């Protein structure tokens, strides 16, 4: 692309304009002059018509429906030299012929005869011309019909393409939005990490000490969680795998540990409810809770990242391929399981208050003065220390709602429903550190037991 050759004071404006026009021509590729545009506009329409491209029998139908053209019988007359004197009666005809010279003496009938004769010919010519015009018009009508038909087809095709493109755009924009939320969640995780180092060693210290040792009075909640984590000797054998665990995906081979036991008997109604809840969480919940954090509980961490599962599901939804209902349901369940496991592990208020009485060993150590009283006395301060104020406000309600008896009977979904709003929305980062002693799943498997099965989390 030529640049402007302006390196001196001697500027030639016309030359510069030529260079600018040259650049415009290069950009545009082709530059039509006015004359060329007029020529293009003057090209006859027939050259653009392609009747063979009409892909239906509408044209034939149109031709059939069109009545055949028959020129109308226009009234006319014949007028020759002798027409004025003709008669079907021979004497009268003879008399007229005899008196014709006398008649011509009185006036000249020749101009009248000529005029009427010419008019007769004109009438004939006019009728013929009208017939030709009508035929030409009908031919043009067919051409117009073909043109309009082709235009309709092309417009329809363009409309479909447009709709497809809109759907694709919507799909891409939803994926973009999701990725942005994901990015924000990751950013919030980074912030959390920087704020955490002060608390982490303090919280983990009790977990590494045997539960028989005296609990740290300044961290009463850890005294509650420590025994649960150190429970492997009493841990029951792993439950049988849930039906969902039969999925071939490698990540799901570990699901029974986390949430597979909570799923075994669920009907289509539950599935649809979960789907609705999932949509709700996708729409509004904090991304950190959805995404999980590096500090998540063993259940959550052993599961595949739920966002990836959602991502996979979105991909199935978005790429426009025919969606397999079964695959969709499996993906939904995977997401639900991950979310539930995360919610269970992410609700310090619920877990610290409701599950503690269940998981306290029947013979607590002597130095632990009553687990239930410890829970009621110490759980709220632990929450207030490690969670935002909002959590502290909601903690009492959660505790009273989920009385120990009720918790044992409560379905996992119900737990998740109650837990998720409190934990996932308001304690996105502090939750994972509070590994609850009991996950309150349907089989009575505690979170501590599950954690004990995963040595990496200890």
């Amino acid at each position, binding site marked *: 692309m030529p640049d*402007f050759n302006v390196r001196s004071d001697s*500027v030639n*404006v016309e030359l510069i304009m030529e260079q*600018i026009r040259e650049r*415009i021509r290069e950009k545009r590729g082709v530059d039509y002059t006015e004359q060329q545009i007029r020529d293009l506009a003057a090209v006859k329409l027939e050259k653009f018509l392609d009747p063979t491209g009409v892909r239906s029998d509408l044209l034939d139908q149109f031709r059939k429906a069109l009545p055949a053209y028959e020129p109308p019988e226009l009234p006319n007359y014949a007028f020759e030299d002798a027409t004025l004197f003709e008669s079907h009666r021979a004497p009268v005809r003879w008399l007229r012929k005899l008196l014709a010279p006398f008649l011509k003496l009185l006036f000249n009938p020749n101009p009248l005869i000529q005029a009427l004769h010419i008019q007769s010919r004109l009438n004939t010519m006019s009728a013929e011309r009208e017939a030709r015009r009508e035929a030409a018009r009908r031919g043009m009508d067919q051409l117009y019909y073909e043109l309009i038909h082709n235009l309709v087809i092309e417009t329809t095709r363009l409309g479909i393409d447009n709709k497809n493109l809109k759907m694709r755009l919507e799909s891409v924009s939803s994926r973009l939005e999701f990725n942005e939320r994901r990015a924000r969640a990751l950013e919030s995780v980074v912030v959390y990490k920087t704020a955490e180092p002060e608390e982490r060693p303090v919280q983990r210290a009790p977990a590494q000490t045997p539960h028989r040792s005296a609990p740290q009075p300044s961290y009463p909640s850890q005294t509650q969680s420590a025994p649960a984590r150190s429970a492997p000797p009493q841990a029951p054998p792993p439950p049988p795998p849930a039906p969902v665990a039969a999925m071939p995906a490698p990540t799901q081979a570990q699901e029974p540990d986390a949430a597979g036991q909570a799923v075994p008997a669920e009907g289509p109604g539950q599935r649809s409810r979960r789907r609705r809840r999932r949509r709700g969480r996708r729409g509004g919940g904090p991304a950190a809770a959805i995404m999980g954090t590096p500090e998540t509980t063993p259940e959550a961490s052993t599961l595949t990242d739920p966002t990836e599962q959602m991502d996979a599901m979105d991909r199935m939804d978005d790429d426009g391929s025919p969606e397999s209902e079964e695959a969709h349901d499996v993906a939904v369940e995977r997401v639900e399981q991950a979310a539930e496991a995360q919610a269970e592990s992410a609700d310090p208020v619920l877990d610290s208050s409701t599950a503690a009485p269940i998981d306290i060993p029947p013979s607590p150590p002597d130095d632990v003065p009553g687990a239930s009283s410890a829970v009621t006395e110490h759980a709220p301060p632990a929450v207030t220390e490690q969670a935002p104020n909002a959590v502290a406000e909601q903690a009492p309600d959660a505790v009273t709602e989920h009385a120990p008896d009720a918790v044992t009977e409560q379905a996992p979904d119900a737990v998740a429903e109650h837990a998720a709003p409190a934990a996932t929305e308001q304690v996105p980062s502090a939750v994972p550190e509070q590994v609850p002693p009991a996950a309150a799943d349907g089989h009575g498997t505690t979170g501590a037991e599950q954690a004990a099965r995963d040595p990496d989390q200890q």
Partner: protein
Amino acid sequence: MKVAIVVQRYGPGINGGAELHARYIAERLARHGDVEVLTTCASDYVTWKNEFPPGVETVNGIAVRRFRVKHERDPLVFAKRSERVFLQRHSLGDELDWLDAEGPTSPAMVDYIAKHVADYDYCLFFSYRYYHAYYGARAAGSRAILVPTAERDATIGLSIFQPLFRSVRAVMYNSPEEQAMIHAVSGNQRVPGVVVGIGSDVPNSPQAARFRQKYKIRGPFAVYVGRVDQNKGCNELFEFFQGYLKDPAGKLSLILIGTSLLPVPEHPRIRHLGFLNDADKFDAMAAADLLIMPSYYESLSMVALEAWALGRPVLANGKCDVLKGQCIRSNAGLYYETLGEFVGTLEAIEQNRWLSGTLGRNGRQFFRDQYDWPVIERKYLDMFDRLKKEPPVAAGDPLPGWFDRRRQDLPAAQDVLAKLPKGPAGRRS
């Protein structure tokens, strides 16, 4: 030497092109002789309503004699008669009726000129298209000098003005394009004429920074100065500039200065500042990267000359022969006719500092050589001297008679205009 300046409106607050031109010339010629202004009591060029009192007053040291307008303009009648003479075959009577409808109809001023023409050495009539010029020049006879300020519009095709161009003593043109157009339409080559134009009182040191600070303008910008009106090509300017804004490489904003008769597009890079005083206007032009002149019809763009005087390049509408010709002759501006050219030229000026600076320098030199006030004054004085030495070329044609005025044999003015040569002077087609 006593000179009469005859113009349709006059006053310090009247900023129309021809009116301002007349005032500048009157004030400059007053340094070389006795100048009196003859004008109407009107200040509105649409209605010609009498707003000033009739009689003599002094404006900036110049005696101004005002005459009443007989009747105001009826827009409906004027539009009807305009359609008749511009688009249809018509008669001389139709054209005279059109002139009467256009106004400002002031027979009192014409009578005064006829009676007192001997008191003046020369009568300078501004704007050929109005009542006062047509009838006043006839009344002044051989003392009439016409400053036509003609634009390439249909009015130039009316037949009543052709004798006017041929019968005045001299014609002071604004541009070679205007001169060529009047020569072509009236065949008045024998009438003494000179391309003069007009100067401008441009401040020596405009304060660009002050303008930016006052109006909180940052970054490079192009400026438009004038009435924001469809007739000035502002619609096309808005359309083209919005096209330019789509190019992410372009950084220029558009600053509009002047009264707006159009809705200005709402865009962060298009700002309308309204009417500004001269100081702010010159500061704005000094702060701008370039001036845009989108008008289709100009006999001489004073704003373009002022931009050149300040060393700023001009981007003009190439469909206006005068502006295009000035850009070519001065080598101080570019021109556009299409959106592509508008964007291309704007980017060229914006991105090539060499080009921008060189165009500005050429413009400043062009202004000094052609339109500085001493040059303008000299041309007028030389013309007066020449006319003293030369006898009048021809007497004015008499007014058409009763039958001549009613003969429907004149072509539509648009048809006459279409046959006139186009393009900048020197390369007309």
